[in-house]
């Protein structure tokens, strides 16, 4: 719509500005720093023009015009603060307030309410409306969003959010006229993974953060920038805290990553850190009981256990969370490396380890998240994308809404709120990917190494559907996404090789969604020390008998190998757990329990799937007997008498690692031998978006949602 070629001139409050034809007046006033009051307008939503707060005077128009819905034209002369403009704005304000309750003192929005702010600027001191105010009915929208609909000013931002951003209409305007209200009509909970954003969108206190309700006045809160630790997207958040307690989390606008949105788990997940089963004191098993001890004692005991292991570290297993800061990951890997421990892994949800070389191809995406918006053809393989990475799924939806083709190949249906091109749902879906590859090779007449040609001879000929996907992918701006579903599939290696070769053949972009929030960070040490070929994988580690098993930041529920891990914990001679939480397995089997901080209580950096390195800093006053995770790890080094890298040295390594991944444009080019079998966990697991890490699992608001309850 916006034409960048022909610049035009618009005069706002006596100052001439260059403008773009087709631009709405409010975009121009925002750009040029002229504030025009508004409620319904939001840059990420369609124009509604219904609140009438942004009325301004435009010369030669016989009435005031809404800046949000008035396209600029050359020579337009606008007055935003003239008498007619002010009168129109004040009139709207008076109308908005006649039925709005005067309950600001008990309203959570107080202090950050757009209506309250503008009422001070544009409102009158007393009301001429001396008639009974109207009240409206409240709906129960579920555990995340509270409603006080009498405060609603019908701006419909939340309704437009549902249709345009979430892609599902959960809220609507019910009824008409003065008695109309925002409702789900028959009290349905709002179930979308991004639903909490309506709290931020609501300009008044009609939709509020339910767990946060009535807890604080917003002006008492301190604000800290941080990164959400619940998926690999690296969503930017603002942590609002009081007395070192997190009270709520809101989005931090980052146009390159999450724009103004965050997923519900980014917003409400933190509740899990206040769970009653936090590990408080270090503990040592004495006879059959766990006794509380000092940190130093627990650390000393752990070091002794490591030292007493025979065979130069070969009998020690280390299982690490993929959600830790890169610094922690690096120190842990380096610690093992120095001690010759080969049994270390962080890939809790990877099922198929049959291909050794996979550690040299670190899953990531080779374009930026914001590039997804403009992709024209996308193939999603083995993913519940909305649950795995809600923000990335939103970008895919944006591209779909602007007309791009989205194709899906998976073992089961997932719900998407956009038009799907080819949708292949099949038990034998891996074969379908091969058939798409075959179609692509036929199409591009690419010369292939014999290995691939021979393999393709063994699979079925492509159908029209497979050909359609291949044709689509061979166009410009195409993308292949490999989801967590594929990663956790028993044929992951073959899926991955198909996808990589398909990506090379069709020259598409490639996005591999990784588990946890910082799996790339976890891979850095192995990558730059070229130690990956010698290390063992998760499934190998849990099948071994260890003298000592160290678990760092994980619990059995975090992995798809849950039953096997529990067996491994039982069978090991010594079990040391570094954990923020206690659970029944630790109580039964751990010999040493060392409490650690969660992400929300720590400092460090994480690398998201587009290789963006972001730091987070949750400075919190710690008492004298508390240690940061880094301090704990350093004391392990000390105990073992080995040298650790300094923080700045680690940072250099991280930078080097990122560059190594980014520069290696190479993709997997061979199809693995399918006769090699790999150890498989005992049961299939369903991906539950509120059960992916130990913090989310303990977030009460999230566990009370439909998704949360479905895992019970």
């Amino acid at each position, binding site marked *: 719509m916006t034409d960048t070629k022909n610049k035009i001139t618009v005069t706002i409050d006596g100052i001439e500005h260059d403008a773009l034809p087709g631009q709405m007046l409010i975009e121009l006033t925002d750009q040029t720093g002229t504030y025009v009051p508004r409620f319904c307008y939001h840059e990420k939503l369609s124009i509604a023009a219904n609140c009438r707060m942004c009325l301004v005077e435009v010369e030669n128009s016989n009435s005031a015009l809404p800046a949000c819905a008035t396209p600029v034209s050359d020579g337009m002369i606008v007055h935003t603060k003239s008498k007619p403009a002010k009168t129109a704005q004040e009139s709207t304000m008076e109308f908005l307030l006649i039925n709005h309750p005067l309950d600001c003192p008990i309203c959570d929005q107080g202090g950050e309410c757009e209506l309250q702010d503008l009422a001070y600027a544009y409102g009158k001191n007393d009301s001429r409306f001396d008639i009974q105010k109207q009240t409206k009915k409240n709906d129960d929208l579920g555990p995340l969003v509270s409603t006080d609909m009498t405060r609603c000013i019908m701006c419909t931002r939340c309704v437009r959010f549902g249709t345009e951003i979430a892609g599902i*209409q959960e809220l609507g305007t*019910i*009824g*008409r006229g003065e008695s109309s209200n925002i409702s*789900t*009509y*028959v009290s349905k909970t709002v179930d979308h993974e991004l639903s909490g954003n309506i709290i931020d969108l609501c300009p008044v206190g009609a939709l509020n953060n339910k767990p946060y309700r009535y807890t604080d006045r917003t002006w008492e809160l301190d604000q800290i920038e941080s990164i959400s630790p619940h998926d690999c997207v690296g969503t930017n958040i603002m942590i609002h805290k009081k007395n070192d307690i997190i009270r709520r989390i809101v989005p931090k606008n980052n146009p390159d990553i999450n724009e103004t949105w965050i997923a519900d788990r980014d917003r409400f997940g933190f509740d899990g850190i206040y769970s009653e089963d936090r590990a408080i004191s270090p503990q040592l098993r004495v006879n059959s009981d766990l006794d509380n001890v000092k940190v130093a004692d627990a650390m000393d005991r752990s070091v002794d256990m490591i030292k007493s292991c025979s065979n130069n570290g070969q009998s020690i297993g280390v299982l690490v969370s993929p959600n830790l800061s890169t610094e922690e990951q690096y120190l842990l890997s380096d610690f093992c490396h120095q001690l010759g421990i080969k049994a270390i892994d962080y890939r809790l949800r990877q099922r198929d380890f049959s291909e050794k070389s996979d550690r040299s191809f670190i899953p990531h995406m080779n374009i930026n998240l914001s590039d997804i918006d403009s992709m024209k053809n996308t193939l999603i393989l083995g993913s519940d994308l909305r649950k795995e990475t809600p923000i990335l799924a939103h970008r895919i939806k944006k591209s779909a809404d602007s007309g791009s083709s989205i194709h899906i190949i998976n073992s089961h249906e997932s719900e998407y709120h956009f038009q799907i091109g080819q949708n292949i749902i099949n038990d034998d879906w891996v074969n379908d990917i091969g058939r798409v590859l075959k179609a692509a090779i036929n199409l591009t007449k690419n010369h292939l190494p014999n290995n691939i040609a021979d393999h393709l001879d063994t699979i079925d000929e492509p159908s029209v559907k497979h050909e359609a996907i291949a044709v689509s992918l061979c166009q410009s701006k195409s993308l292949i996404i490999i989801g967590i579903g594929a990663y956790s599939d028993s044929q992951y290696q073959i899926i991955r090789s198909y996808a990589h070769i398909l990506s090379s053949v069709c020259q598409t972009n490639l996005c591999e969604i990784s588990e946890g929030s910082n799996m790339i960070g976890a891979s850095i040490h192995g990558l730059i020390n070229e130690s990956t070929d010698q290390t063992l994988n998760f499934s190998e580690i849990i099948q071994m008998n260890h003298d000592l098993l160290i678990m760092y930041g994980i619990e059995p529920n975090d992995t798809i190998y849950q039953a096997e891990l529990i067996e491994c914990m039982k069978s090991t001679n010594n079990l040391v757990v570094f954990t923020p939480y206690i659970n029944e397995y630790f109580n039964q089997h751990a010999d040493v329990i060392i409490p650690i901080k969660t992400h929300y209580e720590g400092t460090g950096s994480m690398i998201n799937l587009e290789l963006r390195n972001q730091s987070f800093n949750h400075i919190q006053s710690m008492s004298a007997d508390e240690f940061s995770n880094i301090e704990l790890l350093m004391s392990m080094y000390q105990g073992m008498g080995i040298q650790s890298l300094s923080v700045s040295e680690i940072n250099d390594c991280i930078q080097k690692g990122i560059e190594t991944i980014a520069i290696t444009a190479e993709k997997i080019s061979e199809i693995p031998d399918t006769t090699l079998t790999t150890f498989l966990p005992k049961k299939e697991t369903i991906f539950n978006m509120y059960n992916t890490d130990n913090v989310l699992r303990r977030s009460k608001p999230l566990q009370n949602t439909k998704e949360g309850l479905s895992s019970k």
Partner: protein
Amino acid sequence: MNELLTPETKKEMDHWLNKFPKGKQRSAIIGSLHAVQHQNEGFLTSELMDAVANYLDVPKIQVYEVATFYSMFQTKPAGKHEISVCTNISCMLRGSDAILNHIEHKLGINVGESTSDGKIFLKEEEECLAACTGAPMMMVDHVYIENIDIKKVDEVIDKLTSKS
């Protein structure tokens, strides 16, 4: 869910669906709600609205929005026969208020209510029914009756109440 809809209702819904381009089935919501309300003798229920959403393949909220916006749809239980007395300006000038009063007394209900036997719903009619030259007028089960007076109203209502 579709079993809540009778074959006649589905036929009527298909009739509406056929009037609109592919993918524009939302346009059939209004026609479908007329059909469903008719099937249910005068009002809509959540279940029926959900059935319409399901049959048309549109989000339920879209059906609720429409059902609660248009005055011809009743989302609360209402009597089987619907009487609307126009009281807009042309009818008011020709004595509609006295007629409405008479009907309220005769049926023992206020406008907006239904008789306890569920037979008659006296609809609150604020819109002009576009029969101003035949004022005062009323609409009974969608049939226009113009130039009414107390006598005519009595005849019509007596006939309705004697019907099943």
